Each structure stands twice: as C-alpha cells, then as structure tokens.
C-alpha cells in the first residue's frame, strides 16, 4: 500500500499541477530514502482524505443556462479540491522539514523522459541533494 502511494506521489509531483506553472518537488538535504518515502506516503495519505467539494449551482428553468451553470460549478469545485490537496501536501511536508522547490527546466525535461521507476529514483536524488536544483519557494 505504501509502495503504491509512493508511486502515486512521485507521479503527482512530476507533472505540473493545475495551480502551478512548473513542477514542484520537496527538498531536504541528505534525507534518507526510507524517511523520504515514509514522509511522502504519510502526506499523500492525508491529501487523499480531502473530500469531494460539492458544486454549488443556482436553479434555472432554462436547460442551457442550467447546463452552463453546472459545468462552471463543477469546474470550480474541482479547482477548489485541487487547491485543498496542494495545501495539505504543502503543510504536511513543511511540518517534516522540507522546502518546496520549483524544478529547473533541465530537471523537468530529464524527469519527463524517464519511466516510473527511474522517475522515483530521480525524484529521490533531487529531494536529497545537498543543494536544491531550482528556485526555492516560500514554505
């Protein structure tokens, strides 16, 4: 189970989120592989607890207006949930002493070409490097 979550987390962080312009990873110098996996698994599990945000729509007798309203409400609810998941990951990893880093273009390009296993390895290398490879973001 932890393994599954770890893979999911690796995939999650390797692609840009809806709210981010570039992929973001978490960095803590010289963190042990087991500690990194455990921290990330715990935070992804907490993020998995974020519930569905119920779309709020206004009744309209016009079916086209109702459809457009429902589409926008669903879009907004999905965006809200994504923000909440990002917030949980950010808070949880900050609590464990990690900094958020906006991955450099070179690092992003190299990650995209890798398969799942190699991507996990690369993410761990980035996370545990002595210096962050990219712009350090606010906690």
């Amino acid at each position, binding site marked *: 189970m932890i393994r599954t979550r770890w893979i999911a987390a690796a995939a999650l962080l390797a692609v840009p989120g809806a709210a981010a*312009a570039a992929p973001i990873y978490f960095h803590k110098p010289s963190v042990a592989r087991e500690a990194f996996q455990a921290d990330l698994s715990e935070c992804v599990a*907490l993020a998995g*607890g974020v519930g569905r945000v119920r779309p709020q729509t206004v009744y309209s007798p016009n079916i086209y207006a109702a459809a457009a309203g429902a589409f*926008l409400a669903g879009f907004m609810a999905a965006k809200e949930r994504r923000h*909440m998941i990002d*917030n949980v990951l950010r*808070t949880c990893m900050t609590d464990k002493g990690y900094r958020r880093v906006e991955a450099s273009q070179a690092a992003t390009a190299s990650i995209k070409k890798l398969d799942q296993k190699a991507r996990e390895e690369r993410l761990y290398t980035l996370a545990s490097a002595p210096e962050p490879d990219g712009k350090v973001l606010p*906690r």
Partner: protein
Amino acid sequence: MNKMLILAAGAAAALAGTAAGTKPLTAVPAKLDPTKAYVLVEYKLLANPYASFPGSRKTMPLNAGLTLARYDPALGDVRGLGKAKDNPVPAGQLSAEAFRNRPIAKGADSRLFLLEVEPDLWVVQGFAATSFSLGSYSFRLEPGSVVDLGVVTAENDWAEGQRQAKTGDIFKMALIGPFAKHPDMAPMRLTFRPRAAGDLPVPAGLPADKLVPAAFTPDQKFGNHLGGLVNRIEGVNARARATSAEPPPVEGAPKP
C-alpha cells in the same frame, strides 16, 4: 475560509442528526450523570477581517468550532476509523462530537459551552474543516468529571507569502468570476490557555470538586477524516515562522 466553514457546518449537521449520548447543554443539569463526562470550553470569537467595511460587525458569528473524537493512542487513530478501525466505539455511541452552536453562556466576544460526552480518551480532532492530523492534544475524561479545556482561540495559519483576501480582491473575483485568481486558503490553528479573570465564569451549579483542568498530551496523530485541510494544532506555518531566521518571502510567488 467561508467554504471551509460551510463544509464544517454541513458535517456538524450530519453528525448532530445521529448524535446519541453526546450533547451540548444549555443549562447545568440538576444532577450530573455519573456515567457521563463533561467538557467545559470557552471560545474567543474570531475577529471579522472585513470589519472596516461600513456596517460590518467586529467579530464573526461562531458557526464552526471544535470537533472532539475518541482516540486510540496504541493504534494512532480515531476509534473506528483508519488505523483504529478494529477498535470502534460501542454500538449506539459516536466516535466524534462535532460542533453544535448551543452555548451555555454568552459574552461580548466569547461563548461558553458545556458538553456531555462518554468517558474515554479524547483528542481535539479539528476545528471547522481543518483536521489536526499532524499533531494534536489528547485528554482523558473520567466518568462523572467536568474537564475544563480552558479558553480556545482559533486563527488562520497562513503560509509564507499568503494572506486573507482583501475587500478589493473580493470585488475583483465578483467581476472576473471563475477566471479570477483563486484566493489563498489557510488551515486553522488553535491556542488553549487556562481560564483567568476576565473570562466567562464557570456556571453556577457545576460542583467545584468535580471540575479539573484538562491535562493535554501533545503530538497525537491520526488520519484526515474530516475531508478538509490538515495542520498541527499549534500551526505548522506559525511554528516555521517563529523558528525561521530567513527574510520574509515575496508575495505572489507560485503555489504548489
């Protein structure tokens, strides 16, 4: 913030409909039930961030509050949920006491609550839609006792570079609609302090020999069962700010 409060109110209403054996009291009972435990807690009302807007109230209405849950420290989760799924509470009882706005006393900027609950080891599971899964306080409730949690103050725990939306931001969102920048969101954090002079008095009729201050055990962890944001009860971001020697970040930096 408002959406979080609405979510919490919805969850509270759902739980309140099935509540059995736990209830907020609006008057001190003539005789305390020796098989139950009682919790006394005073909320400081949150300041209204838009109080400067003409005609606005100075404090927010108390439409969200503490969620208390029965805790299994060995399994490390709320009883009957997550890792403690195999240790549920007895049939007919609830594993959590959600907030219901039925104070026993009101002050200008505070509300006093008296809850009747099952004796057990309890944990402060959350406030509004924030779950204190990263580290919270547990406390023991013995049968027939009245445990005073003291005075609790809730605040937004803003991350670096984030802030409460201002009045102008809200007008902008109203004009641009779904294409506006999403407002920052922050989990809640809590501060508990012992009751002091100036706080609401302990209701007359509560036996003084049964009233004990809560003995909190910190760093109790559990799953995110409230479905919202998570935090450490003291605030991860507040703690990071207190320990950080780095200069403050630039506002408007990209989010995760």
